[in-house]
Each structure stands twice: as structure tokens, then as C-alpha cells.
């Protein structure tokens, strides 16, 4: 692995040298694939020519733009489902970490939810919430719940004895220990849970669309597949990858902002910012005095 140059912005040359081999390999693979199909070595309908996938991508994304309404519907379903699942999961995890009896009452049901494949509820949830977006959001919420719950709870239950003793010796109350010690210490695990939850929420939305829906990339995927239009199906699959990447990296960004103390550059940036804020306050308070 090559290290980035010392300047903050990686320059074009470094980027080229970094990505060129990958791009070259990718290009070669695509050409070999294309040739194999064209020369008739690969004949199954399952594997289309890269050029026909490319043509489908251009058509679906840029010419007709068919994919976009479906894209945003699935994205919305996954995000809303995730938000609902995460809100319930975090609330229950906070309650469970604060009260032992509450945790004992919640845990058995959470475990039952965990060992049941959430996907199995798909038909029932569609019967309950209808064919529209509601059922997709509900399934996304149901299956994203557990990973977020269990990660948040584990994070909040981590006890560092010496730090707790420090807080106790300073006369801190339970609320102070919770907000100033337990919550920040739990954030890294919470975000790990949220990232898993986002991925599962997307799975939930897509599977519910497979089962019964009128719109969404899952519907499109089903339609193209059964038309045996493999180029278009793979182009649609790409849109799911895109949604997955968007969701994952936005959470990664939030993680990096909020849990800033794990990465060298972020630490230094925040450190500089706080030094400036301190100086500013000292100046203003000096003026008022």
C-alpha cells in the first residue's frame, strides 16, 4: 500500500497511481468477458455482454431515466424504516441499560425477534400494511431493529470500573455518569449497529418489494428478470448497490464527525477548533471584565 503524500489533499498523480492498476484490471476483465460472450464461449442467457449491460445503464439512468422514481421510492422506504427501527431500538436499549428489571422484561422478546428470520414476516406485514410503501417501511424497521438494539445495549452496558470509580469519587450522580461517561463510550458500538441496521433495512425494503409492490427497484428487478432482460436486471442491481453505498457512507460520515476521537486527522482538527474557541472566550470575557 502506498501512503498518501504529506499534503492534506492527495494530488492527481497520487490518485492516478493508486487507482490506475485497479481500473486497468477492471477494463481487461470487461474486455475478456465481452469477447467470451461474442465469440460464443459463454452462451447462457444468464450472462449478458458487458456492452448490453452498459447500454441498459445508459438507457435506464440517463436516456429514459426509468430507474429514478423507483430508486427514490426504495431509498425512502429504507431510510424511513431504518429511522423507525433505530428510534425504537435505541429507546429500548437506553431503558434496558438504566433499569435491570426493564431489561429482564425486554430481553426475552428481543431474543425471540432475533432468532425469528424477520423476512418470514413479509407476507403478514404486507397483509397488515398494504401493498404500498407502508409495508416496506414496516419490514425494514422490523429487521433493522435487533442489530441496533443489541449494539447500543452492549455499548451502554460496558463498564470501565476505574472510570466509574473516578466519577463516583467526584460525587457524580447517575445522570452525570450516563451522559458524560456511558453514552460517549457507547457511541462507537452504536454506530457499528446503525451501519448494520441500514444494510438490513435496505434488504427489508427490497424483499418486501419482491413479494408484492407496485413501485421500487425490487419491482423493476423482478420485472426485468422475468422478461429475461439480464442487461437491465444487472443495471437495476447496480441501483441497489448505489443505494447501499449512499446509505453506508452517509452513516460513515456521521460516525466520523461524532466519534471524532478515533482518527488522527479528525482529532487534530477538533483540537485546533477547541483551542480557537477557548481563546475567543478568554478574549470576550476579558473585555467584559
Amino acid at each position: 500500500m502506498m501512503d498518501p503524500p504529506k499534503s492534506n489533499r492527495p494530488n492527481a498523480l497520487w490518485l492516478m497511481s493508486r487507482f490506475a492498476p485497479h481500473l486497468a484490471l477492471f477494463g481487461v476483465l470487461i474486455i475478456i468477458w465481452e469477447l467470451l460472450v461474442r465469440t460464443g464461449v459463454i452462451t447462457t442467457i444468464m450472462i449478458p455482454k458487458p456492452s448490453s449491460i452498459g447500454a441498459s445503464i445508459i438507457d435506464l439512468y440517463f436516456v429514459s431515466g426509468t430507474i429514478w422514481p423507483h430508486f427514490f421510492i426504495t431509498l425512502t422506504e429504507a431510510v424511513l424504516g431504518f429511522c423507525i427501527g433505530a428510534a425504537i431500538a435505541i429507546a429500548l436499549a437506553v431503558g434496558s441499560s438504566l433499569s435491570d428489571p426493564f431489561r429482564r422484561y425486554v430481553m426475552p422478546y428481543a431474543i425471540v425477534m432475533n432468532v425469528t428470520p424477520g423476512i418470514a414476516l413479509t407476507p403478514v406485514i404486507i397483509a397488515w400494511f398494504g401493498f404500498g410503501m407502508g409495508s416496506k417501511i414496516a419490514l425494514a424497521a422490523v429487521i433493522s431493529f435487533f442489530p441496533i438494539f443489541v449494539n447500543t445495549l452492549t455499548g451502554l452496558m460496558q463498564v470501565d470500573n476505574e472510570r466509574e470509580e473516578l466519577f463516583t469519587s467526584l460525587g457524580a450522580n447517575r445522570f452525570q455518569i450516563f451522559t458524560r461517561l456511558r453514552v460517549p463510550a457507547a457511541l462507537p458500538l452504536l454506530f457499528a449497529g446503525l451501519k448494520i441496521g441500514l444494510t438490513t433495512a435496505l434488504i427489508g425494503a427490497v424483499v418486501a418489494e419482491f413479494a408484492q409492490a407496485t413501485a421500487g427497484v425490487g419491482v423493476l428487478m423482478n420485472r426485468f428478470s422475468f422478461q429475461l432482460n439480464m442487461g437491465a436486471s444487472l443495471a437495476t442491481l447496480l441501483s441497489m448497490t448505489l443505494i447501499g453505498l449512499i446509505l453506508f457512507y452517509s452513516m460513515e460520515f456521521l460516525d466520523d464527525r461524532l466519534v471524532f476521537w478515533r482518527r488522527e486527522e479528525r482529532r487534530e482538527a477538533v483540537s485546533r477548533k477547541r483551542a480557537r474557541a477557548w481563546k475567543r472566550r478568554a478574549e470576550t470575557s476579558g473585555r467584559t471584565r
Partner: protein
Amino acid sequence: MADTVAQSTMNQRAGMSLRTRRILTHAGIFALLLLAWEIGSRTGLLDPLFYPRPTDILASFWRVYVTQGNIWFHLYASLGLVLAGFVAGSIMGIGLGALVGFNPLVRRFIKPYVIVLEATPRIAVAPLLIAALGFGAQSKIAIIMLVCFFAPFINTLSGVVNVNEEKLELFKSLGASKMQTLRKLVLPEAVPVIMAGERLALTAALSGVLVAEFIQRDQGIGSLILTYTRNLNMASAFACIFTLTIIGFLIFRFMEWLDHRIAFWNHEDGLNRNAQKRQARWSKKLATA
């Protein structure tokens, strides 16, 4: 000494009664919830057509397992596929993971593809595989293999890559061959991580078979749930779903047991058991010699 023994048995008895009391409270709350549900349904607060009564679900259990006995056929169909797909998919995952892990060049070039694959909901390929491979067992097994492949692959890869540097140096200083290092250090170190991947894979396999059966509704527990729901026989659908809960629980316990057997050094009970066994073996060898 006698005093303390008496005290500890007393504590034990007090603990047991506390435990029994807790179990009873939980059972009581659960029973109350069920009762509220039953009453709500009977008084018309909950539409029994959509929200089946607990007694109806119980009756359905009896029907699908005993009087009609139709669930057996579907369970057998689904679980056979799960087993086949899981074994094939995870063996492929472990094998490829190890292969990639040992080869730094391949590792470097495969990384972008892994990131893209990780963001894609793998289960979304289901319609495509069914369309390409046709209806029947082979497309279902292919789907299960696909969803089972990734977790063991990633975990094996990271397990093999993240071997303790100092231990590697130790092996080097002892003049161990590549094969010796692999067999005596790398694999045992990676086993707990690989097992964690297998756990995820088996859970994914269960979800995979359900999605496959939702799309091609010929046989299996997934299509049974779908059919019951379509016929608004929700009680029977729930009997199937709770069956999956039980299967999920059994899978969870089985994987836990397997983990204690294979990666015994991470668990207290495994350490004791193996220490005794090995001591017995040692003394037997001495005796024969």
C-alpha cells in the same frame, strides 16, 4: 468452614427462589399479554381476520403438525435446501477467503469489489438467478449459496490477515515452514472469527430460502406462509412463523455449541474439559511407554 458452606447453600436457595420468582413474573406478564390479545380480538377491538387470536394460532399448530400434517413436507423441502446451500456456500467462502487472505496482491485487487459487494443487498439477485436457472431446487440452492458466501469469506479473510504480529515473528524465529505456520498458528487464530461468520451465514441461509420461496411459490415453508396469508388464514401463517422462531433458536444454540467445541480455548468449560482430556491422554501414553 461449616459455617460458610451452610451460608453458601442458603444463598443458593435464596438465589433459586429469586430466579423462580422472576420466571413466574415473566410467564405471568406473557400470559397477560396473550389474554389481552385474546380478549381484544374477541371483543372486536382487533380484527381476527388480520390479527389471529392466540388460541387460533395454537389450534393451527395442531392442524398443520398433526391433523393435516402438511407442514412436514414443506419444512423438509426448505431445510434440505438450507443445509445444502449453507454447506456449499460457506465452504466456498472459507476457501476463497483463505486464498485471498494469503495473497497480498490478490487482496489488493479484490478490495474494491468486496466494498461494492458489501453494499449490495445480495439477496436482490434472487429474481435474476431464478429467471436464469429456472424454477426448481437449483436456483434456490444458488440463492442460498450466494447469501451464505459473503460472511464466511470476509471473516476468514480478516481472520487470516489479522494474525498477531509477534506470534508470527515467533514462528519465523523458530524456523517454521509456511505450512506449519498456517496449520499451527494462522488457522487456530482465525477459527473463532470464522465461526462467527458461519453463524451469520446460517441465519442468512434461512432468510435466503424464504425469499427464494416467496418468488417461486411452489413448495417450502416460505411459500406456505405466503399461501396462508393470501387466503387470510393468518393463524396458520403464524404457526409457520413461530416454527421458524424455534428453528432459529435451535440453529443459534447449535452454532454456540459448535463454537464451544471448536474454539474451546475461548470458553471456561471448554478449557476445563480439554485440560482433563489431554491430561488423561498424556498419562495413558506414559503408561504404555
